């Protein structure tokens, strides 16, 4: 119970002078030693009087020792009033402050936890500078108070738990002590308390893989209960966290898939998350049931969800479980004759065919029946056109369907569709020239007069290729294709780890690390800079971080096959096929660099020889030409934040150490770290940290091979330069040891070129 309001105009009369104060003093003294029944009530009345005098500005500090004496009680209301009183006078009467400290320190050891807490709070809010040293003892014992956390209000518990999550225990015993103490917090009805507790559990067990997994098992049920109770909004916030955990360790949730089925009453923002979770947990055992359920949603009245459901079926198919049955399911979608269902399905069938060309016969038979009139959406049209061009031989009326499209060229609004149409007609022509020749002519003519630059240019390119010879044109426009085998993730694993680090924050809901959505000044004290090119001179601090963060050293390899599965989701990345003829924008968008992928990457046996060649040729080649070297192409915009860099640097062994001599121009140019950073960046080698002063500099660089799987294909470099000695010592680390030699050559050549 809080104190009654001091300013309440109770029936107290204003003290006429010293007499009144003296009387109060006497009364307080009398009560101080008394144990008579009802004495607490009398005390309360007197205290009220004192406090109301105090609030109206009358100096009642002469009563100090009596007030303190009277407060030897277990009555919390009296205590509170007394704390209010002493708090008020300690500040203005330093002579009384020491008395106050003694009194409060004693109460900090009271048998009642509530009084211990109140006393500690009062002690900390005295705000007398030279008394701060007295706070340390009580604070420390307060932290050790076994009664501790449970006596905080639920909101304060959230704050405390947030701090506990940052704590690094000294040994496993301490970890288990903390977890046992907090165990019952998982049964709290307040989702904020439960999530804060889960964060503590996850953080504490980061380096104990098996316990970490047990934590997942333990927190499942409470999370699901929170999702089911409460308002949809509260469910959503919790479900976002469950979603994050499912995406990290789908295997652990594969038998819980029924919990992720959509409910009729779920808002669409909840359904969307559930669909993603269903996709993630699909495996050999549950795919049939999940796909059956998703197929039901495809007929849903909620169109957005119907679309998402079809996409989910497609994604599961691409995960390669029970593809056979799923293809049947997709083809049944086409029979539903709903425009949006058809549209989504066509896009999926196209993707499936690119991964599983062996299904072409079944698919094409059904796709051939789709009336092009029912296909309106650009993406779906593009997919249909791609299939018409690609499977022109299997679809008897392909040229005639294409003809229809060419005739309505002018009405087609989407340049994406027009580009695809042009390519499809050309491909059809290579396969069925006599029937398509006329159509191709019309398409080329339309393309050449097209107002859209890309369409026009592609028309011109095709035209000139064909002029050069049909065979040449075919080699370029329709080369033999290989099935797509790798699907790149839309999000890198660094970003995912970063989001996981920000468990129980908005980052989880937005599925973005906080630096992406918050202004710089609101990000908090411990954020790294996200802009790798500008964060010079952090070497010192990053090295100390290396040491202190060793606790979560292996958080990456904890969670089973998560990463393996992740790689098979998301956007398509072409691998060995000529990507420009593919019908989807998603192929090229989002990739930092675009190069024609080398044949070598799909022929691992050949790579040694090429590496050798590369190694030889590099020393003489200019760095620009190395970009064109087939086996190592660097990503122009690799993503790697400092945290992830540090983690990788810790995990990887030094693969090679080299010493290079620098030219005198290079040494002369190196007055600070900046010039070299810029220079290396032109060679697609990025600096993540640098530091030092002439003559000694130290740099951390990184680069990533193009088209690498998420989180892989990195080269990390520590580079120490002594300008006076014109010497440069380089330590290489990489997860791509096959290409290390090539990379080292690129790096060497780049650094030797500096200043030239």
């Amino acid at each position, binding site marked *: 119970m809080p104190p009654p309001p001091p300013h309440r105009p109770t029936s107290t009369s204003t003290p006429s002078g010293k007499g009144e104060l003296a009387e109060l003093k006497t009364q307080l003294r009398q009560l101080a030693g008394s144990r008579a029944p009802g004495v607490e009530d009398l005390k309360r009345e007197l205290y009220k009087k004192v406090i109301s005098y105090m609030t109206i500005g009358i100096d009642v500090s002469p009563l100090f020792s009596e007030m303190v004496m009277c407060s030897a009680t277990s009555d919390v209301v009296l205590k509170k009033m007394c704390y209010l009183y002493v708090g008020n006078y300690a500040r203005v009467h330093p002579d009384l402050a020491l008395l106050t400290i003694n009194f409060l320190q004693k109460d900090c050891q009271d048998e009642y936890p509530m009084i211990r807490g109140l006393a500690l709070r009062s002690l900390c809010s005295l705000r007398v500078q030279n008394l701060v040293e007295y706070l340390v003892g009580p604070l420390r014992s307060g932290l050790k108070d076994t009664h501790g956390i449970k006596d905080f209000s639920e909101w304060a518990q959230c704050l405390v738990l947030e701090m506990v999550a940052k704590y690094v225990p000294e040994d496993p015993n301490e970890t288990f002590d903390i977890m046992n103490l907090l165990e019952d917090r998982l049964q709290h*009805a307040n989702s904020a308390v439960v999530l804060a507790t889960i964060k503590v559990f996850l953080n504490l067990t980061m380096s104990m893989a098996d316990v970490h997994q047990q934590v997942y098992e333990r927190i499942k*049920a409470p999370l699901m209960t929170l999702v089911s109770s409460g308002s949809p*909004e*509260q469910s959503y*916030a919790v479900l976002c966290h469950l979603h994050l955990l499912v995406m990290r360790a789908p295997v652990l949730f594969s038998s819980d898939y*029924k919990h992720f089925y959509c409910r009729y009453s779920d808002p669409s923002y909840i359904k969307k998350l559930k669909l993603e979770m269903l996709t993630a947990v699909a495996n050999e055992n549950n795919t049939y049931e999940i796909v059956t359920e998703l197929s039901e949603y495809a007929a849903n009245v909620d169109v957005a969800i119907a679309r998402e459901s079809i996409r989910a079926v497609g994604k599961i198919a691409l995960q390669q479980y029970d593809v056979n049955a799923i293809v049947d399911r997709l083809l049944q979608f086409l029979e539903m004759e709903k425009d949006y269902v058809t549209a989504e399905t066509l896009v999926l069938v196209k993707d499936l065919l690119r991964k599983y060309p062996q299904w072409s016969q079944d698919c094409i038979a059904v796709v051939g029946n789709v009336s092009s009139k029912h296909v309106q959406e650009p993406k779906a049209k593009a997919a249909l056109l791609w299939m018409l061009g690609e499977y022109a031989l299997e679809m008897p009326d392909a040229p005639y369907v294409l003809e229809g499209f060419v005739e309505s060229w002018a009405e087609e609004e989407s340049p994406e569709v027009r580009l695809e149409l042009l390519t499809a007609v050309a491909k059809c022509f290579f396969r069925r020239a006599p029937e398509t020749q006329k159509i191709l002519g019309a398409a080329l003519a339309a393309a050449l007069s097209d107002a859209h630059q890309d369409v026009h240019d592609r028309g011109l390119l095709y035209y000139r290729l064909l002029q050069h010879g049909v065979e040449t044109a075919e080699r370029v426009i329709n080369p033999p294709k290989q099935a797509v085998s790798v699907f790149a993730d839309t999000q890198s694993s660094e970003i995912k780890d970063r989001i996981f680090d920000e468990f129980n924050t*908005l980052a989880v809901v937005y599925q973005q690390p906080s630096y992406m959505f918050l202004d710089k000044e609101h990000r908090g004290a411990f954020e790294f800079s996200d802009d790798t090119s500008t964060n010079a001179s952090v070497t010192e601090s990053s090295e100390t971080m290396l040491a202190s963060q060793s606790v979560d050293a292996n958080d990456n390899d904890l969670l089973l096959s998560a990463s393996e599965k992740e790689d098979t989701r998301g956007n398509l990345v072409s691998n060995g096929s000529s990507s420009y003829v593919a019908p989807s924008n998603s192929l090229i968008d989002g990739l930092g660099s675009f190069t024609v992928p080398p044949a070598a990457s799909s022929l691992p046996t050949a790579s040694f020889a090429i590496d050798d060649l590369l190694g030889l040729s590099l020393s003489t080649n200019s760095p620009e030409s190395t970009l064109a070297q087939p086996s190592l192409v660097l990503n122009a915009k690799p993503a790697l934040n400092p945290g992830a860099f540090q983690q990788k640097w810790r995990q990887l062994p030094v693969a090679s150490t080299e010493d290079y001599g620098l030219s005198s121009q290079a040494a002369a140019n190196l007055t600070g770290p900046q010039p070299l950073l810029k220079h290396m960046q032109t060679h697609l080698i990025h600096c993540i940290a640098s530091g030092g002063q002439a003559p000694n500099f130290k740099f951390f660089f990184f680069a990533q091979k193009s088209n690498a799987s998420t989180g892989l294909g990195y080269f990390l470099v520590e580079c120490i330069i002594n300008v006076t000695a014109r010497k440069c010592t380089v330590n290489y680390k990489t997860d791509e040891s096959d290409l290390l030699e090539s990379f080292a050559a690129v790096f060497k050549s780049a650094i030797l070129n500096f200043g030239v």
Partner: protein
Amino acid sequence: MISQFFVLSLRGDNIIFRDYRADVPKSSAEIFFRKVKFWKGEEGEEAPPVFNVDGVNYLHVKVAGLLFVATSRVNVSPSLVLELLQRIVRVAKDYLGVLNEESLRKNFVLVYELLDETIDFGYPQTTSTEVLKSYVFNEPITIDAARIPNLGAAAIFMQGSRRMPGTAVTKSVVANEPGGKKREEIFVDIIEKISVTFSSSGYILTSEVDGTIQMKSYLTGNPEIRLALNEDLSIGSGGGSNYEYGGSGGMGMVMLDDCNFHESVRLDDFDLDRTLTLLVIHFIITKVPPDGEFPVMNYRMTQEFKVPFKVYPTISDVGAFKAELVLKVRAEFANTITANSVVLRVPLPKSTTRATFQLELGASGQSTDFKESNKMMEWSLRKVTGGSEHLLRVKLTLSQERNANIKKETGPVSMNFTIPMYNASRLQVRYLQIVKKSKTYNPYRWVRYVTHANSYVVRL
């Protein structure tokens, strides 16, 4: 920590606006409302409860036709803010009795006072009505209870054979009764939301009961309250799922998958030893002696239970441009119980141009409707007595000849209902004990059971 708190009507009017940190511009309410109203996205999507516009995070909950919003500039815990918003709603309800635009407008000074005590510089302090009572001095101006829509029989509370209208809980917890003295009473609700999905062949694919034991106390002096549940209650099957077990374990037992508790609940006598299957459950509520409305316990059950309704939908071709849909509903519960506001909704094939309804002879209290815009039909039954069966024939006129997929294009049937004095889980309050020293003290204790459909779906 939050920067601002505000309440908007569904028209976008500012009802309450409180700035705590002055780091978000005042125009935020307008920005928020525009964003929610014109949420970009695919067909028919609504704005998620949390989103970011220009570095400002907006978190909101919808309650009673009002939008309760918090803004923040930092990376807050979304659950914390959403829980806080929900709690503010509850505190306002406790104080005002009824929460709506009118009561908020009439009491805005009080609401501001509450907000000042609830949140300090953006940090939540307390959301306990009990604690707030001693800091807050404005008296609530209650609105006329007679103007609150009647909730029907669902809202009846029982104490033995005595009945009490549900509007009793719309009293303010703090306001004084006109007669002067407050009536000592406590209301306990066992509210269950059930979700069941039936396959086209009538099997139950998934079923779940999500329950809440809710309490609203008008007791003075905050006495200790003991609540005892079924003796044969068991909690937790290990892991998150009971689906594997079906209903095989312990016939007749109430097996909850999991549950959680309000912070005032002490579990000293709540033995959580998972090796035991028979438990005597009772809570003691003491820590912060509660006042006002709060959920004592939330629980979740996937154990098989007897479903209250069975629905048999069939659709067939009856001519080139015609089809017939037959819906049969059977109430599977005891005939002493009556369900209210039963509504069945069925999406019809997109080629449907007309639907003619044929109710049974002598059917009363039933109505039907067909909306052409979204091809949705609706069948409402005001009351359904246990054990009864009802039938509806719907003749469809189609614009398209011979539709092979007519079955796929129809459904699923979704059902809404409220069944008072019924609970699917069979969780019972064995006794509700209020401990107070005086022998003459015997407050009114009202217990109410009610089951709602959450997602009750029958596929065709």
